[in-house]
């Protein structure tokens, strides 16, 4: 199956944050918004941006950045959520295969096998996955955006029967909740190749309007992201890494240490087996004597 993707056009986004609310609502993260006495657990910190960061309960959040140059003020809006990299550091470092690429190309995970080791949290170049340890049970689980492919909440691969069976019908449109809700149509969902083409057209149109810095972010980064951004300025201005890389340690882990680990482990087993054989031979010799 050809890869799918989400196209986010920052120049169309009005930061209404319908996506942020829809993400929580669809994925059931509304039930765990921390509440304090008579209120929720956020405060106004002198910004429209809230909650302050991604968390296991916040998989998508809008970032607001004020800029000023030549006396002209600008207000930039950026989506912050999993970029679903092809060369995904989180998948590389995951010790037990909890994180994987699904058939659509998105980075999914099996929460049952997650041990909460937190390697993915440290390795992600976009600083997306989050894990918190339950202070009572000691159990830790990582959470992040799955492009609405989480088992039981799968908007993309759900069968007609499954859609009919849910009380929350979404008119059968198989797109992530954030895309479905976006009023100015800043978000699109579809074949990755098609969206790259749309994105390139948009960038060309912006450049023709005088936005020389306009660019398509995610076409080639990290082997190609599955969330692609249309930006009218450098990624750095929007707070995105200009040239995101899988950390060397993650490469070392997956490509060197982990294979080496398997090799060393294999050698150990082999050694133990040899040991057993030698020991048995020795034992037989002893018996003959």
């Amino acid at each position, binding site marked *: 199956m050809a890869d799918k993707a989400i196209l986010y056009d920052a*120049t*169309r986004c*009005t*930061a*209404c*944050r*319908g996506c*942020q*609310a829809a993400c*929580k*609502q669809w994925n059931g993260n*509304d039930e765990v*918004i921390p*509440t304090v006495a*008579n*209120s*929720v*657990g*956020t*405060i*106004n*910190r*002198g*910004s*429209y941006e*809230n*909650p302050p960061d991604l968390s296991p309960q916040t998989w998508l959040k809008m970032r607001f950045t*004020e800029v*000023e140059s030549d006396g002209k*003020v*600008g*207000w*930039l*809006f950026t989506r912050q959520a999993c970029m679903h990299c092809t060369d995904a550091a989180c998948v590389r470092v995951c010790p037990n295969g909890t994180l994987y690429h699904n058939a659509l190309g998105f980075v999914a995970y099996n929460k049952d096998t997650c041990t909460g080791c937190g390697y993915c949290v440290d390795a992600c170049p976009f600083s997306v996955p989050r894990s918190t340890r339950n202070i009572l049970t000691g159990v830790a689980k990582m959470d992040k955006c799955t492009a609405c492919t989480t088992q039981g909440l799968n908007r993309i691969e759900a069968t007609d029967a499954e859609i009919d069976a849910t009380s929350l019908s979404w008119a059968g449109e198989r797109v992530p909740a954030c895309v479905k809700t976006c*009023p*100015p*149509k800043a978000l699109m969902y579809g074949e990755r190749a098609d969206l790259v083409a749309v994105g390139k057209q948009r960038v060309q149109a912006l450049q023709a309007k005088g936005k020389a810095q306009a660019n398509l972010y995610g076409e080639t980064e990290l082997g190609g992201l599955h969330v692609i951004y249309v930006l009218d300025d450098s990624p750095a201005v929007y707070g995105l890494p200009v040239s995101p890389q899988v950390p060397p340690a993650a490469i070392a882990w997956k490509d060197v240490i982990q294979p080496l680990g398997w090799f060393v482990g294999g050698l150990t087993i082999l050694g133990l087996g040899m040991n057993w054989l030698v020991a048995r031979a020795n034992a037989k010799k002893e018996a003959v004597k």
Partner: protein
Amino acid sequence: MTNHWGDIANSDVVMALGGNPAENHPAAFNFITQAKDRGAKLISVDPRFTRTSAKADLYAPIRSGTDVAFVGGMIKYVLDDIEANPANYNLIYITEYTNAAYLVNPGFKVAAELEGLFSGYAGALNETDGAKKKYDKATWAYQLDDKGVPKKDKTLKDPNCVFQVLKKQYARYTPEKITAICGTPVAAFLEVCQTFASTGRTGKAGVILYAMGTTQHTNGSENIRAYSILQLLLGNMGVSGGGIDAMRGESNVQGSTDFGLLFDSIPGYLGMFTDADVSRQKYLDRVTPKNSDPTSANWLSNYPKYITSLLKAWYGDAANKDNDFGFHNLPKLETGKNYSWISLFEAMQTGNIKGLLAWGQNPAVGGPNSNGERQALAKLDWLVASDLWMTETMEFWKAPGVDSSKVNTEVFVLPARGSFEKEGSVTNSSRWMQWRYKAADGPGEAEDDLWMINKLMLKLKELYASEGGPNAGAIVNMNWNYGDPPDVRQVAKEINGYDTTTGKQIDGFANLKDDGTTACGEWVYCGSYVEPDKEPDAPVPGNRASRRDLTPDQFNIGLYPKWAWSWPVNRRIIYNRAAVDLNGEPWDKEHPVIKWNPTKGETGGWDGDIVDGNYPPLAIDPVKSRYPFIMTAEGVARLFAQGMADGPMPEFYEPWESPVPNQMSGQQSNPICKVWRPAEHGEADKFPIVGTTYRVCEHWQAGQMTRNMPWLVEMQPEPFVEMSEELAQEKGIDNGDSVIVASARGQVTMKAVVTKRFKPFKMNGRTVHEVGVLWHWGYTGLSTGDSGNILTPHIGDANTMIPEYKAFLVNISKKV
């Protein structure tokens, strides 16, 4: 809206002025994006840089309350440019479709000639005697010929023609003056003028999108008048992609206005009855517009048909020729008395009003001077409040600082159903009446509004019938037969109207009569719910509001004429006969709204949208034709409007509370406004900062629906005050600090959002700061905090009495 939401996509320049669609009408922003995709420019004029400004090609800051100056300056720019570059403007539109050529009484003097007042003012400059704050409008009139037809000079040269009077009035509105008043840099102002004036070219269209930032001023109505003049000079009314579009802030606020929820009108924008209207005829003599020009349709000469049909709908068989169709039953206003929001709350304060039904509204948060309005609630004997949630109004006795043991008001709460828990229609900003169905049962004992009003009315009828009472006939004779529980389709059918002899639904207000043979609950909605065989394919046969057919219109300009139903008569763009030239050819070939088709029928006819006045074009058949603006008595659009209370063309006055003297004239604030509480006038020495109120995308109105939603509260958890970095530094305030904002009415505590998006205004050599406060908060619900309306004054617009929420004076300090 004169046009409709989807039509914004056809604009060449979209100007958001007094509105912030990205934040307060987020779903509609898609149409602006579509226009931009076509190459349209978006202009955002706002005191601070908003989420709309972030998407705009052009942003111009403006000090709150100075819109008349700003738009007056644009009018002057266009008037000058029309003379310098006439080829860039549609002069036929201006001379033939507006009253630019009409001659005005030579005794009429514009404000430019009389220190800021128009001729006929009873008082002196800055008059304080309320009795003298009014105009004698004798000179605000056209010169008439011996047949009573207004005289015209189509060369626009006569010094008394409206065009020349307009030039005289706006000569003072120079870019330098605009900067001195509005604080808008000259370059930014001129760029806005240039860009928007580019739509004056024949075939181009610009739209003005506005909301409460325009209306909630003591000059609110004149702000809209200024837009009208600008749009008429640019030939932007009636055309696709043009118009003046009021973006409604609630799903059905258009519907409630259509149905006369304001004190001064009854359903269908007909005039309210006063005690001077001793008979139906006396009333009609007062309200029916008169005209002697044979080429003017003067559509409202049909007033007798609409009012008689309305009386038949209200009083049924109890309304007949012999009893003046029950006109005597109607309750009437006392002449000269005002029954607007502010007046009502003042009357509660003084104990004149003993009971209040607060239906789907929350004055304890949303009302101006809301501390005062909370006190007024405590003076009531009883309060019935209906809402989806417990509101601050229901629980005003729990407000901070209130000793509930001293409150004697008995409060009844009626839990209501949400819009998806009941069937009915909603009319959106586009004037589309859209039918919708019940999707879920309401929780607990919640009932829908119709159920409540039905029960109430049936009980009242029973009580008045058995016990009598003052004017009992008004209630007892009321035609009220929707069943119990009531059938909302029955109500919709009555709104449309029916033949009182056959009982058949009437198709269109042209078929209404003034002899009692027709009944109609709202004449502009006539044609919405017809006989089933007239609209058999609608999901509810006959109910055109229920239609969901996306077949495009003839010229494919996005009208979708079979989607729902648009008042009047399913017309999607009103005044559309101004979209064509004198031969019926569209000005804009790319987006034709209508087009004269000589081969249609026997004598020709119109293609496209439902034509506004089905007459042939003026040049094709000058005898049968009529001027295009059929809703004015003279048939053309008004650059000069006699109906206004405070001047036939807008003149700039400072808001009631202002930090500076009026730079335009010696008249400081609107000369007509009634001042309710002079002691609560804030002076600039104590309150030097301009304050304004607004909303954010994440919360809605007084907050009952959104402050109880955890997702939304998480995103905007607390009320805040936005201020510039310069002001914050001056006051020693850091981003995120708790700040006290105080006005002459009260004070609030809010979080400081210190931002580059607010800048101090540099005006006439002085610096004026402005701050903005949110008003979504109160003391109930998941998230609590102060409402910005604790700060706002009890003063209203001279024409409509809408409170001046958008410009007042405050001071701020860091909370220690």
